[in-house]
């Protein structure tokens, strides 16, 4: 059984006429990154708030945070994607729902995809933030309180700045996860990198060239993310503050 490779396909024009197949895939990478980055900003903001709240003494807030985490952690990403895309516009008031449904492509899929990934990832960020805060010595919170700082100030000035440095490595892998997870958005019609590799395979019948190219692009993207994050970790490191080694974690 032999497969004849035909790598020149990458430099042939794609049927849409926008350029070569390689260019077509790179635009897909652009959409992958645009989706992942926008979702990441929201996920960080939400995750920090939820994760912090779950370590406070306000019991109702802890419960609410737990509920949020459990709901969005126990429903598969693709199902959440469908909920945002098919179900949410139906449940909103009709005018708003119609406005969402009539958004021109690709925004009609981009916006739900970003919201979905943001909330899905915020749960994981929240867990990391909570773990980071809990890994700090108890004395940090007690000392901050003894200095007369309010709970908000204790978090803002003492605990969160240390926790962020501790959780930077796991956050890096969460960021790589959000890039990978954005591929699920192809199910609601967003032509990101994997979606375009699939489309290229359908147009050109060059299955393995399309998927190999996409794989290489993902690997290179990961490499860049790792290098950037390593530099960031180095630049914010506090001498003497040794990050607690996180235990093995389940993930995908």
């Amino acid at each position, binding site marked *: *059984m032999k*497969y004849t490779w035909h790598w020149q396909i990458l430099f042939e024009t794609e049927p849409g006429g926008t350029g070569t197949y390689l260019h077509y895939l790179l635009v897909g990478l652009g959409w992958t990154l645009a989706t992942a980055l926008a979702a990441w900003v929201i996920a960080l903001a939400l995750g920090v708030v939820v994760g912090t709240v779950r370590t406070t003494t306000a019991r109702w807030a802890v419960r609410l945070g737990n509920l949020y985490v*459990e*709901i969005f*952690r*126990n*429903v*598969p*990403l*693709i*199902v*959440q994607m*469908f*909920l945002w895309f*098919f*179900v949410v516009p*139906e*449940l909103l008031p009709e005018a708003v729902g119609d406005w969402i449904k009539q958004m021109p492509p690709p925004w009609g899929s981009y916006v739900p995809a970003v919201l979905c990934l943001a909330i899905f990832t915020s749960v994981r960020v929240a867990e990391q933030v909570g773990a980071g805060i809990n890994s700090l010595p108890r004395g940090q919170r007690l000392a901050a309180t003894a200095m007369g700082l309010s709970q908000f100030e204790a978090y803002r000035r003492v605990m969160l700045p240390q926790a962020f440095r501790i959780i930077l490595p796991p956050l890096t892998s969460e960021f*790589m996860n959000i890039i*990978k*997870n*954005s*591929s*699920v958005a*192809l*199910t609601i019609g967003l032509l990101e990198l*994997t979606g375009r*590799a*699939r489309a290229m*395979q359908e147009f050109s019948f060059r*299955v*393995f060239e399309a*998927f190999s190219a*996409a*794989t290489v692009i*993902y*690997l290179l993207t*990961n490499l860049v993310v790792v290098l950037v994050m390593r530099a960031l970790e180095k630049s914010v490191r506090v001498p003497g503050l040794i990050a607690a080694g996180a*235990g*093995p*974690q*389940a*993930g*995908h």
Partner: protein
Amino acid sequence: MFAGYDFDAIQRSLPYLFREGMTFTVTLTAIAASGGIVFGTLLAMMRLSAFRPVSMLAGGYVNLMRSVPLVLVIFWFFFLVPYIGAWIIGAREPVRVGAFLSAAITFTMFEAAYYCEIMRAGIQSIARGQVWSGYALGLNYWQTMGHIVLPQAFRNMVPVLLTQTIILFQDTSLVYVISATDFLGAASKVANRDYRLVEMYTFAAVVYFIISYSLSLLVKRLQDRIAIIR
């Protein structure tokens, strides 16, 4: 909000959803989890090998699998498995492979990379003295691993392995992209046939939530019990 909610549409399709869809999902999860744990443990042993080419091969495989999206891996195997099958039996044309077999191979191979990392941490958590004592007793590598290291490593990692399996259970819903009829695929087919998207997708979300959440509670209880015994 629930005024036009058609509960009857869900009720009518229950037998199809569970007998076809959920059976597919659960079987796939069971096969991929058991295959993935076995293959993942072997990979972990390879990664910890002192023989560089072996550890680099395993490390390369694990890192490759962990760097690409699962959806892309599903596509890869969906098209690759027919070629591999033809290569094994020496056929000229790619063999026909059903969605289930393709998905089972994909998820076993993909999850093995994740199980490998868990088992590697488990093996490394065992005190070196255990290995040395094994060798001192005259056991060889496979005996030391099989009778001393792996049982302890496995036991320490049971909660994480189970949590990973819950994630695997959720991830199997991605076989939607190769049009397999798992639970979500079944729900989506009914949704499009009867035009009941809101009902079917909310129902699917609720079912996945109930199953994953109850399993995660069980894992948490198990974790507490193991923690006390140790």
